[in-house]
């Protein structure tokens, strides 16, 4: 469990910021799983654990392209919540597996909350026709929508941390198949995600470029 209320508060504030970064403000990629999870782990005092979670989630998210008005899962706050809870619970492959699964579920819930916010923004950002659209009114409504997004992200992260903390404390210790299997499952997930990415870059000679990269990887392994 996260025993420190200050840490929980920091995570929720960071989560709100990450939610903003996803769409509303800046898009500096603080909301990418590898960044958000590492920093969330750092807030809790275990950045390496956060980064290990972020690594798997980032690979799974490479194929998610925010093109047009498509509905897609929201990775950032889910990564913060999962990494925050996982980093506080202590390392372990079964715990990491639980955190990854939870993050993937929480991303869907986050994505659904984004859709609801966008519907709410229709009422917030487009005042009734009989109201004159004054500059001040437009600015206030636009900024109010941003504030709502921040609050949405914060609540998502706060709830996520608490729920996953409970799962990691009460359910994950029941895991009955050792530590090697979850480790292998997660590496398999990482490998599958990276394999899927081979289709991402539709370039001429893509397969040759892939092989060149693979050769570089083998060189690194040889000298490691």
């Amino acid at each position, binding site marked *: 469990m996260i025993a420190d209320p200050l840490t929980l508060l920091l995570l929720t504030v960071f989560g709100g910021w990450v939610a903003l970064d996803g769409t*509303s*403000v*800046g*898009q*500096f*990629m*603080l909301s*990418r799983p*590898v*960044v958000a999870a*590492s920093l969330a782990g750092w807030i809790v005092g275990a*950045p*390496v654990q*956060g*980064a290990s979670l972020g690594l798997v989630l980032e690979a*799974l*998210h490479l*194929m*998610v*392209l*925010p093109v*047009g*008005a498509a509905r897609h899962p929201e990775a950032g706050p889910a990564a913060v919540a999962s990494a925050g809870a996982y980093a506080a619970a202590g390392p372990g492959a079964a715990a990491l*597996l639980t955190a990854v699964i939870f993050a*993937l579920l929480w991303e869907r819930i986050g994505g659904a909350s984004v859709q609801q916010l*966008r519907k709410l*923004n*229709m009422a*917030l*950002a*487009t005042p009734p026709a009989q109201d004159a*659209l004054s500059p001040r009114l437009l*600015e206030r409504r*636009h*900024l109010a*929508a941003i504030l709502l997004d921040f609050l949405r992200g914060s609540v998502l992260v706060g709830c996520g941390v608490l729920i996953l903390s409970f799962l990691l404390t009460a359910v994950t210790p029941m895991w*009955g*198949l*050792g530590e090697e299997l*979850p480790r*292998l499952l997660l*590496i*398999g*997930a990482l*490998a*599958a*995600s*990276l394999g*899927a990415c*081979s*289709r*991402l*870059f539709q370039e001429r000679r*893509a397969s040759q470029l*892939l092989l060149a*990269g*693979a050769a*570089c*990887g083998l060189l*690194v392994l040889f000298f490691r």
Partner: protein
Amino acid sequence: MRAFPRRVRWALLLRTLLIQGSWNFGTLIGTGFAFVLLPALRHVYRSDPEALEAALARHSAVFNSHPYLVGVAAGAVARLEADGTDAALLGRFKDALRSSLGALGDQLVWSAWRPAVALLAIGLLLVGAPWWLSVAAFLLVYNALHLWIRTWALNVGLAEGLQVGQALRAAPLQPWTHRVGRVGAVLVGFCLVLAVADAGPRPVALLVAAGAAVLGVALAQRTPVVVWVVLTVAWAVGILIGAFRGPLS
């Protein structure tokens, strides 16, 4: 063209960072577009509040663009408003820009630059670099292009106005997309080998990881959902076994 004061240009640039703040299914980023334009409109119509509100109303209508390239539209529209361009022409101009700005940005940024830089971060973690190096490399490399695009977009829009289409065609965005894509393809191969190797040293584990990679190639965009289902089922089975039999060593 009346040049905008530096404070107005800075305000436009900084506000582009907030353009998607009120994204909605009605106007898409229309309201945000008006929010971005406000400093310029206030400057142009500083002695005519009614004209300011009229300009605000026409620029709050439906609009969409890639957020990094929206400065092209905002800068061009600001200049055209300053030049007193006909409102109907402005509307047609915005409609013409919409799809090209979206497509250019999606191809360069979402489909190439972002995944390539993410793979760089993943690769750094897989070779054993410190977590903070991976995060810093991601943020610094990614945002170098991000912030350059935003600034360039606004400057091009303000400078070219109605001729902005020519500037977009002349810009090296397409060649960059291909170059980044080639780097990304190399990084995929690099990360894939390191990820599979992490399963080692047992041959069975390596085979399972390699098989998962091949499955990912076959499944492509369905991979995340399939991975989620497999992990969840495995987790549930492990929990149930543990609950009924107790943990295995």
